[in-house]
C-alpha cells in the first residue's frame, strides 16, 4: 500500500535529483516501467543504460532527465527509502499509484504540497494511508479533507 507522510520529515531524502545522480544503476534502464515513465513524463526514449533521447533536449545522459522522473525511478527502485515526492508534478501522480500497486511491500513517500491524484483517473478510486493520522483515504474528498490540515503553516519545514 502507498503511505504518504505530509509535512516536514527529517528522514526523507529531500534533494531527490542529487540523490538519483549518485545512486542510479544501469540495470534500472532495462525495466519496462522505467521506459514507460520516461516516455510519458519526459517524452524520451531510453537508448541504453546511460542515455535517453528526449524530444526537447536531444540525447542526454540519465542524470539530465526531469526531476519528477528521477523521483519516480527512486521510489520504484529503492522502496525501502522515503523520498520527497514534492519534486514531482501532478503528471507523476498516476505513476506513484502504479508503482505502489506493483510493489508487494509498502511504499512511503513524503509530500509538502497537495498533489492532485485525480485528473487522469477521472474519479476512479484509489487507496492510500496518510501516515500522520493513520487515515486510509479512497477518493479526492477524503484525501483533501485529511491532507489539508497537515499542510498548514504549523507543519511546514
Amino acid at each position: 500500500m502507498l503511505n504518504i507522510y505530509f509535512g516536514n520529515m527529517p528522514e526523507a531524502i529531500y534533494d531527490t535529483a542529487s540523490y538519483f545522480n549518485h545512486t542510479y544503476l544501469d540495470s534500472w534502464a532495462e525495466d519496462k516501467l522505467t521506459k514507460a515513465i520516461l516516455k510519458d513524463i519526459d517524452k524520451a526514449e531510453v537508448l541504453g543504460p546511460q542515455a535517453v533521447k528526449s524530444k526537447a533536449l536531444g540525447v542526454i545522459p540519465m542524470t539530465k532527465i526531469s526531476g519528477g522522473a528521477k523521483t519516480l525511478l527512486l521510489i520504484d527502485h529503492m522502496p525501502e527509502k522515503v523520498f520527497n515526492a514534492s519534486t514531482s508534478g501532478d503528471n507523476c501522480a498516476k505513476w506513484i499509484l502504479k508503482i505502489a500497486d506493483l510493489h508487494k511491500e509498502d511504499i512511503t513517500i513524503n509530500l509538502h504540497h497537495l498533489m492532485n491524484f485525480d485528473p487522469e483517473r477521472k474519479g476512479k478510486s484509489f487507496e492510500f494511508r496518510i501516515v500522520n493520522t493513520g487515515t486510509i483515504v479512497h477518493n479526492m474528498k477524503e484525501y483533501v479533507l485529511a491532507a489539508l490540515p497537515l499542510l498548514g503553516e504549523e507543519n511546514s519545514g
Partner: protein
Amino acid sequence: MKGRHEILVKDARVQYKFAIERNITILRGDSATGKTTLIEMIGAFQRNGDQSGVALKADKPCVVLYEQNWELVLGTIHDSIVFIDEGSPFISSHDFARAIRGSDNYYVIATRHSLYDLPYSIKEIYGIRNTTRKRYQGTKRLYAEFFPLIDYETGSSRNPDLVVVEDTNAGYEFFQHYFARFHIRCISAQGKSKIIKALIEEEYNTALVIADGAAFGPVIERLLGLRQVKDFSIFLPESFEWLVMRSDVLNDNEIRTILDAPSEHIASETYFSWEQFFTEMLIDRSRGTYLAYVKNRLNKTT
C-alpha cells in the same frame, strides 16, 4: 529593485523568454517542463558568460543561488535576479525569509512547497509551457515561456450564506457592514493561514472567500484543492486598500497612474509585499481629508 524585467535565455536547443515584476516569483507545475534546464542554463552563463554557449539578455544580472553557503553568498548579491532550483530546503526556513526581506534583489524560486514566510502574490506563480509553433518548423530549438498557473475561476454562481474574510480590522468591518445588508453572515478568519480551517469547520452551503491576493500565494493551492470538495467562491483583490483606491473614491490622478503599473513604484528593499505599499499609500493619500484611512478601524465615511 523595482520595475518589470524581461529576460531571454537561449542555447542551440531551447529558448526561454519571460518577464519578472515582483520581488518573489514561484515556478511550479508539471515535471519535465524545463524549470531545472532554465536554471542550469543561467548557472552556466553565470560561470562562463558567452563562452558557456548560453546567451542571456536581461537588464539586471541573473544569478543562481545554491544550497552550499547560501547565506554568505546571498550577502554578496545585489540588484540582481536570483534563481533557486527545487531541492533546496533552505527556502522554507525562517532564516531565508529574514535574509530576503529588505533585499534589493528579485527572486525566482522553483518549488511546489508553500513558503509561508514569504508574501508572494497569486499572480506570480508560474508554470513553463512550450510555445513552439509551426513557424519554427525546420529549426531544432524549442521555445518556452512562463504562464500564470493560478488562473482560477471566481467559483460558484450561487449566493453565499457565509463570507470568510482574511482581514481583521477595517477590511473586515467594511465587508461585515456590506453583507449585513443582505443578512449574510461574515466572519474574519484572523489571517490568511486560518482561512482553510474556517472553511472546513464552519457550516454553510456556499461561501465566499475574500483575501489579499498580493500575499496569498502560500495558501492559494490548498484553497483551490479544498474547492474540489466544498462549494465556495473566491475574490482576491491585491488588498483591501488597493480595492478602496481602485474604486477611485479619492479621485486622485497620481493614484490611478501608480495602480496602472505598481511595479514601477514599489521597491523590493522597502516593501516585502505590495500590500504593504498599498496600505501606506492609502494612509498617506487620504491623510487630513474626511476620507482619512487607518488600518485598525473603518472610517465611517467609507
